[in-house]
């Protein structure tokens, strides 16, 4: 509550002084434990802002909405550490100018919300490095571990079973801050790379392609997982790929706005064992 009040006051001041043109935050949703995005342009609306442990959606995707940042005015946004990593990646991929972003950082343990010090992405670099250092110690999800213990056929069957429910609504793509392509590969039909019918083949291809495009970019904010109407555990694939790039290339996505994207860079001594 104290954090929420503190941020309401800050937001009011910033909007009143015109140092930001808009603030993206959370407001109450359809049930007590749901929140929906809030976009405020005037300081009078700041009282609608809600900040508590149920604010879990990563809002950073709204920043790349067409035209929002093109007037070079600043925009404020409420972000958890994952969200800060997302906007670092967006900046590294030249999707936004970090100087236009005012960050209201927060994090929560249990029901307790605490503010994160800083307003600019560079203020959080120490925090993000800590998260990187601690990431190998975080215990894995039991389901991910059990998939890794499966043999090939069992893994294939597991994912076929999961993907068979996919209805190709592309909610995962819409919810993902990293999926900002004007024209997604599934929407291109000359040539048609991915089978668009929601048969297992097309579902499999779609989910593999999305996971590949998110490799080394996903910050595991969980937006796709929560958006999926048929509860496919998409986070597991993305987690696995994040582990892979961390182990293989020591790459932790979103550490800084100048970090090189892992698949757009290379080391001459990248070590593999499978090329004949």
């Amino acid at each position, binding site marked *: 509550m104290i954090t929420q009040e503190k941020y309401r006051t800050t937001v009011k001041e910033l909007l009143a002084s015109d140092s930001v043109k808009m603030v993206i935050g959370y407001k109450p949703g359809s049930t007590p434990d749901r929140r929906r995005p809030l976009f405020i342009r005037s300081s009078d609306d700041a009282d609608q802002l809600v900040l508590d442990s149920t604010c879990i959606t990563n809002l950073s995707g709204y920043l790349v909405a067409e035209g929002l940042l093109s007037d070079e005015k600043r925009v404020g946004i409420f972000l958890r550490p994952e969200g800060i990593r997302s906007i670092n990646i967006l900046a590294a991929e030249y999707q936004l100018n970090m100087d236009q972003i005012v960050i209201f950082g927060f994090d929560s343990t249990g029901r307790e919300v605490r503010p994160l010090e800083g307003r600019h992405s560079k203020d959080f670099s120490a925090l993000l490095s800590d998260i990187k250092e601690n990431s190998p110690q975080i215990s894995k999800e039991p389901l991910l571990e059990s*998939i*890794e213990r499966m043999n*090939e*056929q*069992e*893994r*294939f*069957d*597991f*994912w*076929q079973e999961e993907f068979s429910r996919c209805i190709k609504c592309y909610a995962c793509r819409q919810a993902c801050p990293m999926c900002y392509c004007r024209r997604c*590969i599934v929407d291109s039909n000359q*040539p048609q*790379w*991915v*089978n668009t*019918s*929601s*048969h*297992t*083949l*097309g579902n*499999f*291809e779609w*989910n*593999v*392609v999305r*996971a*590949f495009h998110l*490799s*080394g970019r996903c910050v595991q904010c969980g937006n796709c997982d929560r958006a999926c109407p048929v509860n496919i555990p998409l986070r597991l*694939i993305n987690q*696995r*790929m994040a582990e*892979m*790039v961390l182990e*293989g*290339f020591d790459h932790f996505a979103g550490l800084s706005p100048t970090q090189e994207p*892992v*698949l*757009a*860079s*290379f*080391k*001459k001594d*990248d070590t*593999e064992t*499978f*090329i*004949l």
Partner: protein
Amino acid sequence: MSEQQFEPNIIAFVCTYCTYAGADLAGTSRLKYAPNVRIVRLPCTGRISPMFILKALQKGADGVLVSGCHPGDCHFTHGNYHARRRWMVFRSLLEFTGISPERVKYSWISAAEGSKFADLINSVTEDIRKLGPFDQYQQMIKDAQSPATL
């Protein structure tokens, strides 16, 4: 022969400067190799999107081979380094989703390695033949061709 041997369909994506030239050398040297491979020539391994591999499987390939210049020898100086990273990521992704990594092979073959090309095609064909037809994928292709169930 009472039982016919399984002849796998293998698609090879190769770069034009090294592996394709290597394949050419194998041909002009009159080296014999398995006829199961269909070669698709591309400017560089850096041009080979993982989508190509999925597309080949989608069209019924039993195996895929991707091959280009040795590290350091790329005509475009570092196309193959980019490709290598991409393959490492893509390979572990396929593994995690249950596609056997044995179905998709990668190699470096230079323009001078005509005999390596011939040997590799023979061994890859043998390996894929041992694995048999890619039934898991064929089943998916079949499902995709039948009308959707509501």
